[in-house]
């Protein structure tokens, strides 16, 4: 098993968990009484915690653990869910996301993360009421027990100089076999943070030299440290059960923050707590087994599993009555003696599960119990030695789907695109065979074969485009959070309604949608929707409604974003546009209200009185329009003053094959997207009217401005005329208008796969992209809108 593969998987799943948690938290806010939502949320956090524990990302685990404890309280009804709890949990999840990003970048967490993690965990725990029923921390936690009240015996026996308020007393008794685990307890003890005093604890009788076993550790350590509990937890994190800690209570009045919340306090747990501890232990046991079954190879995973199982047993041991304790001790010994192989551990753990963890019977080998999540479920008859496939394949229980890295899909798209282009060479070949080599039979056979290959290639093209289709919902996911946070920040009440999340569109389209959509929403929230007071005064309900709808129509996806806010004031827009010099005053007044509202799309426009940091200056609707049009989409806007605004985005379903018209100008070949072409026409030189720098002609009674492609592209030659002295003019549709592009010659149409320009050429204006032609040449495809 490759550690980095497991780590990648952890990161993927952790991110999924966080997404799910975020979504659930928002759902719960809307339906606080829905227990299924709460349970679902709890399960997800629980899974996340389990996964964190396997990797010993203690900072992350601390935060998630605190979240889980809080949720447990909410779930059992001891704490009422509130906005405050939601905020704390969301903040904790955000921090967890950052920690996971750090893990993804560096492979581990550094000490810099400990403080914020602790702060987040404390914030969560503060919301848990302390009470007699407060749950004891789970057995796998790294917190060490510290009794608050009576002095333990071992402390009483020490001279008073060992008990100093503010200092922590630790009795570290390594287990006898610790050397075989590669531990050096002396080194660990001497490196204790904040070490003030260290004394060796030796047995009364070492025995005779002949029978002395130097590898049976019988040395203990008494340590006095001024470090805080968190640092000590971390230092002794691998051997918590081998340490007893005592911190003398501070005099009354001093803050009890010396001990971080989350330590176990009860020395005699109530039966309810014990039962809960057992349940938790069973869950962890099952989950650990499932994890091990998924990655059984290698001694390191077996080692890790063994350690976890041992801790589970050890964690419960102190709370058990004496006879059970000996049984558990025997179990631990048996576990330590197991060979380091996944199957051995799994087999032992299954049969031990029933006896070690009493109370409710546990389904050891069978798949997901009701409390474990999708990651834990496995079919009972699955061979634990079965090789787990590539690092990116993870079968989710139930749904037959694969998780694949995006770059693999992109590679497939490229390859299929190349195939589509390559196959187009075959007709050329057939032609040459016939005309140049006189091989008519051969030509025909080539054509037949081409037909077959053509069909297959087109099917492949179609199939891969389907793979790239993603539901629009992936973009919508962020909205819930955005709307919630923004509306709270602005003091507005907004209800977000989303419809049609399953509508699918090409991945590129979806990705280029995210930012424009978010911006449009922010606009609505910031400028469109009013505060409750204003709304009520206007006779509207206090809660504003923001509706996002996606649907498919023909080969397009339509997205409607509607709000019932204040709408756009045409007069204000007119004024601002004139003020900023975007339009002359008389033209502004000549516009109808509906047209005036469209002025918001002009670059440099913003009517916000106060440029808020959210959606004020700089990022206007013009940027939204540009982004949408870059993927061949369009934006339209309607608004009614006082009633609301509706914005519609229309996008192509897939960015597959583009039909282009090929033209020649100045010796170069270019492509123009066919959907912009109105007609091709030949215009005689004397039909062109020159007026200052501009040229126009009359077509079907309409004046059509003309531009020469040669001058637009700064080509060296002048437009050529044909034998009859006519120019070739390509009439294009730009918005509502027609414009004629003077070229040298038309060269027919073609189907190409348009690739946007990347890298150094990416910023080039005037080109929609490039395409590879059947004969290997590159065709530059124009973007007339950007050029003109």
């Amino acid at each position, binding site marked *: 098993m490759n550690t980095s593969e497991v780590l990648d998987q952890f990161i993927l799943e952790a991110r999924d968990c966080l997404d799910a948690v975020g979504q659930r938290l928002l759902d719960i806010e809307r339906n606080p009484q829905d227990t299924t939502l709460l349970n679902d949320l709890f399960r997800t956090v629980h899974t996340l915690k389990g996964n964190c524990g396997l990797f010993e990302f203690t900072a992350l685990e601390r935060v998630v653990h605190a979240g889980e404890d809080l949720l447990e309280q909410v779930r059992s009804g001891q704490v009422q869910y509130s906005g405050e709890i939601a905020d704390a949990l969301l903040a904790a999840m955000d921090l967890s996301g950052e920690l996971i990003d750090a893990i993804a970048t560096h492979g581990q967490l550094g000490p810099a993360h400990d403080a914020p993690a602790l702060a987040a965990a404390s914030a969560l725990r503060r919301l848990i009421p302390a009470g007699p029923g407060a749950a004891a921390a789970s057995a796998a936690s790294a917190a060490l027990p510290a009794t608050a009240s009576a002095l333990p015996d071992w402390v009483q026996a020490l001279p008073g100089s060992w008990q100093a308020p503010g200092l922590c007393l630790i009795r570290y008794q*390594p287990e006898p076999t610790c*050397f075989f685990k590669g531990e050096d307890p002396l080194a660990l003890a001497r490196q204790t943070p904040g070490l003030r005093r*260290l004394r*060796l604890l*030796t047995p009364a009788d*070492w025995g005779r030299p002949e029978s002395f076993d130097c590898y049976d*550790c019988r040395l203990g350590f008494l340590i006095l440290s001024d470090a805080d509990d968190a640092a000590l937890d971390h230092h002794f994190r691998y051997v918590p059960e081998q340490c007893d800690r005592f911190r003398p209570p501070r005099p009354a009045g001093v803050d009890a923050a010396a001990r971080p919340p989350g330590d176990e306090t009860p020395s005699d747990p109530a039966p309810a707590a014990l039962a809960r501890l057992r349940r938790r232990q069973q869950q962890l046991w099952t989950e650990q087994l499932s994890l091990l079954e998924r990655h059984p190879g290698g001694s390191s995973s077996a080692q890790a599993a063994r350690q976890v199982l041992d801790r589970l047993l050890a964690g419960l041991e102190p709370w058990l009555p004496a006879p059970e304790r000996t049984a558990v001790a025997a179990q631990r010994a048996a576990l330590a003696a197991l060979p380091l192989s996944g199957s051995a551990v799994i087999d032992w753990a299954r049969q031990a599960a029933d006896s070690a963890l009493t109370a409710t019977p546990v389904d050891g080998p069978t798949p997901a119990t009701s409390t474990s999540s999708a990651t834990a479920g496995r079919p009972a008859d699955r061979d634990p030695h079965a090789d787990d496939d590539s690092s990116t394949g993870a079968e989710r229980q139930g749904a037959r789907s694969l998780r694949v890295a995006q770059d693999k899909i992109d590679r497939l798209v490229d390859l299929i695109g190349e195939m589509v282009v390559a196959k187009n060479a075959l007709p050329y070949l057939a032609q040459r065979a016939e005309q140049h080599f006189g091989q008519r039979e051969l030509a025909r056979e080539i054509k037949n074969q081409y037909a077959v290959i053509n069909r297959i290639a087109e099917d492949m093209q179609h199939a891969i485009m389907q793979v790239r289709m993603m539901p629009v919902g992936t973009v919508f996911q962020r909205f819930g959070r955005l709307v919630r946070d923004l509306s709270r920040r602005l003091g507005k009440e907004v209800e977000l309604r989303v419809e049609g999340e399953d509508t699918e569109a090409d991945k590129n389209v979806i990705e280029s949608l995210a930012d424009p959509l978010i911006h449009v929403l922010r606009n609505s929230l910031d400028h469109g929707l009013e505060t409750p007071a204003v709304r009520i005064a206007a006779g509207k309900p206090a809660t504003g409604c923001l509706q996002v709808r996606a649907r498919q129509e023909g080969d397009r996806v339509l997205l409607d974003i509607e709000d019932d806010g204040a709408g756009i004031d045409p007069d204000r827009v007119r004024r601002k546009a004139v003020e900023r010099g975007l339009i002359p005053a008389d033209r502004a007044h000549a516009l109808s209200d509906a047209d005036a509202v469209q002025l918001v799309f002009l670059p440099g426009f913003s009517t916000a009185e106060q440029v808020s940091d959210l959606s004020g200056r700089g990022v206007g609707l013009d940027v939204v329009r540009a982004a949408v049009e870059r993927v061949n989409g369009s934006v339209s806007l309607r608004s009614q003053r006082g009633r609301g605004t509706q914005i519609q985005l229309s996008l192509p379903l897939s960015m597959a094959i583009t039909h282009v018209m090929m033209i020649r100008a100045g010796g170069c070949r270019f492509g123009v997207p066919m959907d912009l072409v109105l007609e091709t026409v030949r215009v005689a030189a004397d039909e062109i009217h020159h007026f200052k720098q501009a040229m126009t002609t009359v077509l079907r009674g309409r004046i059509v401005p003309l531009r020469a492609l040669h001058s637009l592209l700064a080509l060296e030659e002048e437009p050529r005329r044909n034998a009859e002295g006519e120019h070739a003019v390509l009439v294009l549709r730009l918005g509502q208008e027609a414009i004629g592009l003077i070229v040298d010659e038309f060269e027919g149409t073609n189907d190409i796969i348009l690739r946007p320009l990347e890298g150094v050429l990416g910023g080039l204006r005037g080109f929609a992209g490039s395409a590879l032609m059947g004969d290997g040449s590159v065709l530059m495809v124009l973007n007339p809108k950007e050029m003109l």
Partner: protein
Amino acid sequence: MPVRALKTVIKLEGHADAEAAETVLTWLRQHPAGVVDLSRCEGMHTALLQTLLALRPTLRGQPSEPGLAALLGPNQEIT
């Protein structure tokens, strides 16, 4: 080499690891009156420390690291 065994003396040099414990133990069993020379010892594994504490051989010299010297001393304590 952290351990150098001579006829009447066994010398520890630098950092003595866990394996040194076994070497020293075997040597001490074979040389009950042997002397353990620590003057060039800079550190030792727990196993070796407990071997020295259990068998209480005659020690010569002090380890250069004062904490270790204190632990081998009468109080078995570092302050």
